[in-house]
């Protein structure tokens, strides 16, 4: 509401100032403007003669010239004056004034409502109320990241810290900063292929999905450190693919598939890409022999000997566990909400949210109570 009042005031003040000037207009046709200048020029010449800058002779010549111009100007002024007196007395200014008052409000509000967001409030950072969904999470994340960053600045040798910072920044989609964090981590642990790959991947993201030399270098470093680094294989393949070097791309991806466990989440994507590359190049995938086959088997064996592959049961258990944990987490949140509503019982949205939460947890009775309270408040 206040926006309309304020903008209306701006518009009104503008229109009044213009209309008044139209209505009050007076003829002011003195045309002595050149004469003033010529008189000033004559004075200047006089001064120059007095100061001896000009000889009296030269000065007189100049003066004569200026006087001639002055005379000529007077003739023009008189002619114009006659001319003007003929034309003076134009149409009534009221028509113009009415037209302005009629048109300007429409055009200005029209264009503004097309371009702007009428009445949308300001959102200064200081009094921002982060709403409890996305904003809160990312605001919290933001402050956590800041704290972590400060701690790492004081104590920069914490490998885990840098990796965590990198991952958090990825969640905040601040890829450039994330890439720098991974690079820091890599400085501490220069042999960790997956860190090099993350540094490269985040930089790639930061560059809006473009390869530059640095991205390539880091992926190549990752692959050198661990020939089976799957991210490196995938992206190096992608780089070749984008550069239309299909044979190289197919080779990378064939390698990647050969070392990937059967259910790896990236498999579908890689297979799809592989087919694209084969189609684009008319090369047969079957002609490409995985370069990493032997190495990969031995490493798989090694891994198996250390930790047995998870059975289906294990996975189910893990899912179950995490479900329980999730529920526990939700419960603790709901309890906190319920407690806070005790101290602030008029929070309508709070009660609504509580009701929804109880429904999710399957506690229908409590949910109904909360809904009742919300309905009461709505009245």
């Amino acid at each position: 509401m206040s926006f309309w009042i304020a903008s209306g005031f701006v518009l009104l003040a503008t229109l009044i100032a213009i209309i008044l000037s139209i209505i009050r207009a007076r003829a002011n046709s003195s045309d002595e403007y050149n004469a003033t200048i010529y008189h000033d020029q004559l004075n200047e010449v006089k001064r120059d003669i007095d100061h001896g800058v000009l000889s009296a002779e030269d000065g007189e010549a100049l003066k004569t010239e200026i006087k001639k111009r002055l005379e000529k100007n007077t003739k023009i002024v008189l002619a114009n004056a006659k001319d003007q007196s003929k034309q003076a007395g134009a149409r009534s200014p009221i028509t113009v004034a009415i037209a302005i008052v009629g048109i300007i409000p429409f055009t200005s509000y029209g264009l503004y409502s097309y371009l702007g967001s009428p009445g949308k409030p300001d959102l200064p950072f200081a009094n921002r109320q982060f709403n409890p969904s996305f904003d809160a999470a990312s605001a919290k994340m933001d402050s956590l990241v800041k704290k972590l960053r400060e701690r790492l600045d004081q104590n920069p040798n914490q490998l885990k810290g840098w990796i965590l910072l990198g991952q958090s920044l990825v969640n905040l989609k601040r890829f450039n900063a994330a890439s720098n964090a991974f690079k820091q981590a890599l400085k501490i642990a220069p042999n960790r292929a997956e860190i090099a790959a993350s540094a490269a991947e985040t930089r790639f993201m930061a560059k809006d999905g473009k390869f530059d030399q640095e991205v390539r270098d880091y992926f190549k470093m990752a692959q050198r450190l661990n020939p089976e680094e799957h991210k490196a294989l995938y992206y190096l393949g992608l780089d070749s693919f984008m550069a239309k070097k299909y044979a190289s791309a197919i080779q990378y991806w064939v390698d990647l598939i050969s070392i990937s466990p059967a259910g790896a989440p990236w498999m579908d994507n890689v297979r799809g890409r592989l087919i694209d590359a084969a189609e684009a190049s008319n090369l047969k995938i079957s002609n490409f022999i995985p370069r990493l086959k032997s190495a990969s088997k031995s490493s798989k064996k090694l891994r198996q000997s250390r930790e047995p592959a998870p059975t289906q049961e294990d996975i189910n258990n893990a899912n179950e566990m995490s479900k329980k944990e999730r529920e526990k987490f939700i419960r603790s949140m709901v309890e906190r909400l319920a407690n806070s509503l005790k101290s602030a019982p008029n929070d309508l949205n709070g009660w609504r949210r509580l009701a929804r939460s109880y429904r999710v947890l399957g506690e229908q009775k409590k949910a109904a109570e909360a809904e009742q309270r919300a309905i009461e408040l709505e009245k």
Partner: protein
Amino acid sequence: MIVEIGHFSLVLALFIAGLQGTLPIIGAHRNNHSLMAVATPAAIIQFILILGSFIALTYAFLVSDFSVINVASNSHTEKPTLYKISGVWGNHEGSMLLWALILAGYGAAIAAFGENLRPTLKVRILGVQALIGTGILAFILLTSNPFLRLTPAPVNGNGLNPLLQDPGLAFHPPLLYLGYVGLSLTFSFAVAALIEGRVDAAWARWVRPWTLAAWGFLTGGIVLGSWWAYYELGWGGWWFWDPVENASFMPWLAATALLHSAIVSEKRDGLKAWTIFLAIMAFGLSLLGTFLVRSGVITSVHAFASDPTRGVFILLLLIVTIGGAFILFAWRGPTLKGAGLFQPVSREGGLVINNFLLTVAAASILLGTLYPLFIDVLKLGKVSVGAPYFESVFVPMMIPMIAIMGLAPLLKWKRGDFKTAIEKLKFAIALSIIGGLFVWILIDRASAFTSLGMTISLWLLTATLTELAGRIKLFRGPLSESINYLFRQPRASWGMTLAHAGLAIAIAGITASSSWKVESIQIMKFGDQVNVAGYNYTLKHVREIQGPNYKALRGTFIVNKGDDINWVLEPEKRFYTDPVMTTTEAAIRPTFLGDLYAVVGDRDEKSGGYITRIYFNPLVPWMWTGAIIMVLGAGISLTDRRHRVGAPSSNKIPAPGIPAE
């Protein structure tokens, strides 16, 4: 709400500019005073509205309102307050708003202080100014709107390019725009005169202070930008002939020419068409500069082609404005006959030749700037036109120009006497030749060019002082009388003396710093010493420090020379995170003979030392001093009493025979 009011004000300003651009011009044509009366209040209101919207945007930056897209993409909560404010014009949309604000500001200034202009001329000037404003405001609102909102607002912004987070660059754009856009007013004067069909003494006198103001701002803006490049880019260069710099230099050359030809128009009633032509050119070049910088066409022709809306809009604006003005010029120009005849050897003659040289210089820079673009557009490959072209074309033209620049003020108007002038200048001629020989023989025998530069600089300085000495009759009467004359010189002639002397000093700086720069790049460990141009630099330590929104390596050099000198230089290399960028901050210690200039770079992993670059840049302070003196000259000239000669007030001088309405 403040943001939305700002947006609404800007929309309203567009329509007020539309009114101001049409009604007064029609009114002046029909001699309708009601319509003409719209111009003055509309110009002031338009300015207030745009100012309001500029303040609203500044407010959004200050409080970090990330619901405004422009703020979200160019600011950050952790940015220091100064750069939150300069962030307003540190981006495309905001800088165009500043452009529009200054444009309207000049219009409002004419509305408020233009009472010494003939009413029809004044409203026509305001009308033309508003037509340009309409185009710019439409451009902002339709293609570069800084008030667009974002839902949901991001938690924080992207930050401002760290290169722009610098006091030099914070104030470079406003100054430069005051210059660039100031030329819009001379353009409006020119077009208004063409519409009226007359260029008279009053026109020529009143176009001058505005040209002078624009010229002063433009000079200041260019120097500030150059100074920024000098200390921020970290390798001691200060002018790179890159398209963005050329974009500001070309209007400067045209404005310089205009400034001088307007003198002839006022005092000698001559060069009228030429003055009008230059006024159109000067603004045309500054619009072209805006197009080059703002359309992105320089960074890459292809980037421009992929999002051409903005570029095409400015290009159309450029074509309509300048093309329209030239058509008008072709139609009306022939009627602008000058009355003042003059001989080739005369002050007018000198001004004409220099005008010609300045214009050709501007044209050759224009060619060098646009040529690579045309080649690229026509798919003839990629070329880059760099310093060698510009230097080999520009410098030779400047040599005769400066020779005449020293001579012409000593020639008389209309019919000069070459012999008398040379007679007066014999001391200056001798001194500059001796100076040049001295440089060649004793300082630098390798480069005849350098000594030529020094000769020219000395010539301009001594000739300018000779002219001043002649004015105050030095040595031709008692000294007390000369001093008396000195203080009674009109401020406009002080302006000329200062501007010309300033240029002479700057030329000495330019010549010396391009020829005698000493450079030393090395890896230094703590305690290592390097001798550059007689100064001993010891790297004491390099420490990590924390700035408000960056981290930096700060190197500490102890500089010794003899027993007296014991200075500390602390260059920095800064690492910004939002957005990620590294900047260098050179440490500079100016001395009379040159700048000591140190830069600290990365750590060299092998040796454990730091890469350091140390320069001695001779006479660079002279360059800045010279430029400041030039700007000062413009300022002093602006306060001359001739610019305050009042309007004929209708109370004192009754209008001859006009019946009241």
